């Protein structure tokens, strides 16, 4: 094999310029996959991180049927105290669950005594919410000295555009009016603790209040939980944890349903588009490798017909001739891949050094492009397999040549 490789590599460098051009093309494809893949995966990871760590959590649990009517924020599809206790016991038994946060979500009217507007509220236990949605406090304007107490009883966090619309400022008093599940209307006076920015910028009408205030407003004897947000120890364990929870929820008497962030956020479609783009780039790479190797190996066989005749005449078996050309195609793929991976990783390293910062909504995101080792292995394996595949036809042709015809070729 060592000799086959030696001859194959020397044959490749017989036509240096041609080999260099073809290798550059393949290496460029590899660089494209690594750099684009690194950027796209990093962008997706950052965006998913922003969404899950500032608002949604990694997974959410609701009463069965809630997500179907989520736009109405129904208060009749809740988990009772006993049901919540069962779910909490289940979550505490799962080592993958880092934290969870029960929430009451409902719609209400906010009034500054002169004007009224509608808003959506998430009523939370601040400490549990802060540990589940670890970057929520970054959305609060101004400093938050104690993140576990970003919200106290009697306080509300109001979104930026409502503050402006109702001419409010932190410390002002507002009235919150809501209808409970029985249709009874109630109101509560709250003080604005701070302005809450929407992660997507000055839009939306989502505010936060303490769960005990919501309990009073909605006249609940005990908290009736609409949603439980879950934060995992490791995000890459999302699928198995979701499967495990879904299995638990599949039991007929289980009152809850489980959804991952992907099932709840429209950004999941963008994430899928990013995955599709990465696939398209990979497909382009495969096409480049296929056409380049097929082209160069076909030319190589055509130019060396007489040489093929010689080695066949002196007794080289057809199988060996096939191997000789396959090794040549493989060597070209491998050399190009190694060069492409080295250049691609070099570019990613430089990008990491220079730091690519951008603003996503109100969040400053620092893009640190990196590519998982599995992706690099995928690129290397696929390029080499495609090289072999592309080299097979010319190699097969070479091995099938009749030596007497090949020797007579001019």
């Amino acid at each position, binding site marked *: 094999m060592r000799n086959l490789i030696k001859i194959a590599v020397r044959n490749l*460098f017989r036509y240096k310029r041609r080999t260099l051009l073809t290798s550059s093309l393949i290496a460029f494809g590899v660089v494209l996959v690594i750099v684009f893949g690194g950027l796209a995966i990093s962008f997706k990871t950052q965006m998913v991180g922003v969404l899950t760590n500032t608002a949604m959590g990694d997974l959410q649990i609701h009463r069965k049927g809630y997500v179907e009517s989520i736009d109405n924020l129904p208060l009749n599809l809740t988990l009772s105290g006993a049901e919540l206790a069962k779910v909490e016991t289940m979550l505490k038994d799962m080592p993958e669950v880092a934290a969870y946060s029960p929430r009451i979500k409902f719609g209400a009217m906010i009034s500054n005594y002169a004007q009224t507007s509608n808003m959506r509220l998430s009523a939370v236990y601040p400490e549990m919410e802060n540990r589940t949605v670890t970057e929520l406090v970054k959305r609060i304007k101004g400093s938050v000295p104690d993140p576990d107490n970003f919200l106290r009883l009697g306080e509300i966090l109001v979104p930026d555009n409502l503050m402006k619309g109702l001419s409010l400022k932190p410390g002002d008093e507002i009235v919150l009016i809501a209808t409970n599940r029985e249709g009874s209307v109630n109101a509560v006076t709250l003080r604005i603790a701070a302005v809450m920015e929407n992660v997507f910028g000055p839009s939306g009408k989502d505010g936060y209040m303490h769960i005990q205030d919501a309990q009073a407003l909605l006249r609940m004897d005990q908290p009736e939980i609409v949603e439980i947000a879950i934060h995992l120890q490791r995000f890459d364990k999302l699928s198995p944890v979701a499967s495990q929870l879904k299995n638990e929820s599949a039991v007929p008497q289980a009152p809850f349903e489980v959804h991952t962030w992907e099932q709840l956020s429209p950004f999941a479609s963008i994430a899928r588009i990013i995955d599709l783009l990465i696939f398209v780039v990979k497909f382009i790479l495969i096409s480049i490798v296929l056409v380049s190797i097929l082209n160069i190996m076909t030319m190589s066989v055509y130019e060396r017909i*007489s040489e093929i005749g*010689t080695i066949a005449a*002196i*007794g080289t078996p*057809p199988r060996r001739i096939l191997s000789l050309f396959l090794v040549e195609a493989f060597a070209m793929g491998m050399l190009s891949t190694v060069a492409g991976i080295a250049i691609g990783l070099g570019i990613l390293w430089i990008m990491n050094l220079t730091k690519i910062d951008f603003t996503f909504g109100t969040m400053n995101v620092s893009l640190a492009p990196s590519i998982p080792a599995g992706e690099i292995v995928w690129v290397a394996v696929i390029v080499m397999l495609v090289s072999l595949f592309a080299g097979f036809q010319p190699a097969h042709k070479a091995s099938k040549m009749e030596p007497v015809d090949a020797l007579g070729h001019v």
Partner: protein
Amino acid sequence: MNLIRLVDVTKTYNTAGVPVAALKGLSLTIHRQSFVSFIGPSGSGKSTLLNLIGTLDKPTNGKVLVDGVDVATLDRANAAAFRGNTIGFVFQNFNLIPVLTVYENVEYPLLMLKHVAVKERRERILNLLDKVGMLDQKDKYPNQISGGQKQRVAVARALVTNPKIVLADEPTANLDHATAFKVISIMHEMKKVFGTTFVFSTHDPKIVGEAELIYTLEDGVIVNNDKKELNGGTR
């Protein structure tokens, strides 16, 4: 003792649908350790005959027996193995592999065809290169040596597997007369040293000098066979 035997061999090619007979009922015998030349003009059937003996082609009719094996019965893989073990080739255009050095060209058949220990392989190659006078050029590439030197390397390559027969099709066609004669002399010398049967073809009667048996071919038939005493040929 017979090494090569042809019995009523014909070979017909179809050229644009027209059958063209290259060999017409040829019968001959070549003994072991002989030094045989086929001469004749272009198109007389010399190359076809060497191709048949070399198992590169199969006869249309008749039998070609090489070392007791009927070449028509060999498939591609077996024919390749048979050639690797039994036959060495020297070509008109030298046909050295351009990406390999002189040493590596001679080494190639041993690497591809036979498992010979490294030490023995090296000794055998250096010995052959020494015998053909190319030892000092062993690290050069084919494009760095002359035509005569290339053909000497080709002779060494043909002999490196210790074949029973070396077939040389017009080995001197691309060489000047002096160089051509030197190459034939080297081949003859190798025959004496290794006991290998050499069969070569040429269209130039002046360089058959040291051939012990000269067959003259014309239009696919032998018109003359001339046995000579060793070293008694024409130049």
